[in-house]
């Protein structure tokens, strides 16, 4: 019961703001530690790939950013749907804060994929590669969400209209994913998400998993930072924000 009540209290902006302020240094420190440890493991400890040599090491940036980009879209759509159904303003604020972060990670995945593609396939961009095209479409979905929000002046209206777009988008994401996959099969098969035995040695896999967790925590930190600003802006006329400002001024 205590946990449920604590969770409910998070939906109240002042509670959430205090919680986020306490949480963000922890997220910052742990993301830096995890990413440094994982990158060290990946760039120094892991052996070079017998086919791709050292070129494969970009995987330690490419795969985590692609994963976080997709995670971000799911978080965005989930938060927007919660905000739409239960009219929780904080959930809409989460969706707003996630969108640019998710778009950035998706963009990073595209850029690192292109850089990786040049030595491996001999070309920066390969249209026949399903996952590159999927990432590109995902980036367009993020941009569409952000543009729609920016175009609607009334914040409450923008919250709810863009939530519908995000919900439609998240239904479409798996359809787009599988249609693009079916459309082309040139890309190398999945390497991690195989349950029997991963096609990658443990020395390479463990750093990758650590970086993925690190990127996820880093994503959470970025979102929490943006969210604090968003909450303050939305609640700028509320008494608790005024009190906070008064405390700061002293």
């Amino acid at each position: 019961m205590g946990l449920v009540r604590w969770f409910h209290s998070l939906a109240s902006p002042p509670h959430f703001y205090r919680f986020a302020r306490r949480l963000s240094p922890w997220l910052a420190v742990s993301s830096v530690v995890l990413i440094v440890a994982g990158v060290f493991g990946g760039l120094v400890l892991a052996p070079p790939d017998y086919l791709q040599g050292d070129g494969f090491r970009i995987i330690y940036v490419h795969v985590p950013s692609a994963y976080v980009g997709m995670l971000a879209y799911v978080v965005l759509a989930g938060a927007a749907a919660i905000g739409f159904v239960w009219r929780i303003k904080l959930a809409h604020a989460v969706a707003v804060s996630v969108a640019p972060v998710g778009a950035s990670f998706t963009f990073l995945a595209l850029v690192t994929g292109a850089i990786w593609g040049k030595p491996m396939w001999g070309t920066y961009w390969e249209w026949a590669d399903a996952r590159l095209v999927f990432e590109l479409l995902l980036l367009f979905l993020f941009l569409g969400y952000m543009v729609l929000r920016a175009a609607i002046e009334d914040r409450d209206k923008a919250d709810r209209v863009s939530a519908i777009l995000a919900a439609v988008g998240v239904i479409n994401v798996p359809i787009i994913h599988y249609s693009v996959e079916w459309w082309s099969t040139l890309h190398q098969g999945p390497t991690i998400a195989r349950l029997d035995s991963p096609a990658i040695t443990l020395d390479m896999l463990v750093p990758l998993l650590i970086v993925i967790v690190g990127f996820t925590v880093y994503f959470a930190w970025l979102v929490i930072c943006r969210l604090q600003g968003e909450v303050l802006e939305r609640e700028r006329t509320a008494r608790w924000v005024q009190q906070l400002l008064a405390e700061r001024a002293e």
Partner: protein
Amino acid sequence: MDVFLLILRRDLKIAFRRWGELATPLIFFVIVASLFPLALSPEEAQLRASGTGFLWIAALLSSLLALDGLFRNDLQDGSMEQLALSPAPLALIVLAKTLAHWLVSGVPLLVLAPFLALSFYLPVEALPTLVGALALATPTLSVLAALGAALTVSVRGGGAIIGLLVLPLTAPVLIFGARATDLAVHGESTLGPLYLLAALAVLALSLGPLACAAALRVGLE
């Protein structure tokens, strides 16, 4: 059901009275399709290889253009508010309006497409598949474009944004439609992509109007 037929009949009547608006997307479709050979090359081999792609892109763009104003006139003269207040479910009304729009913009496209395809040297045997695939794909495109129009009702001059919102979502339709046509050109079985197009149409027609109605209600406030 009465409401559905009533709205359908009303929208068809309005559409035929404004035949300029009716013809614009179709002329647009023909012009875009005829600009592709000018931009690439008039060689027979090239046109046959990429003709299906031209047709699909042109169909996609013209269906977006056609549905830009789907709700705008009704919003401007206030009849959309009346429709939203009526006891009939708004999703049903939206479905009727989308169907009416598809009848006047999608069906003529199905008639025009074979002639354009023949001009691109596509084999006659592929034409039934092309028309069938377009017949399955255009309802999905109409629903998606209607969704774009519904999402942007509160945006001033929202026409340009609709493309940005909707076009990424049309990728599966484009992939399956072009694939079916391509298989037909090479004389292979086209059932797989056609089934998938039908599945997408069912999904769009069942869930799309609900999302449209929700977006319209927010936009009307």
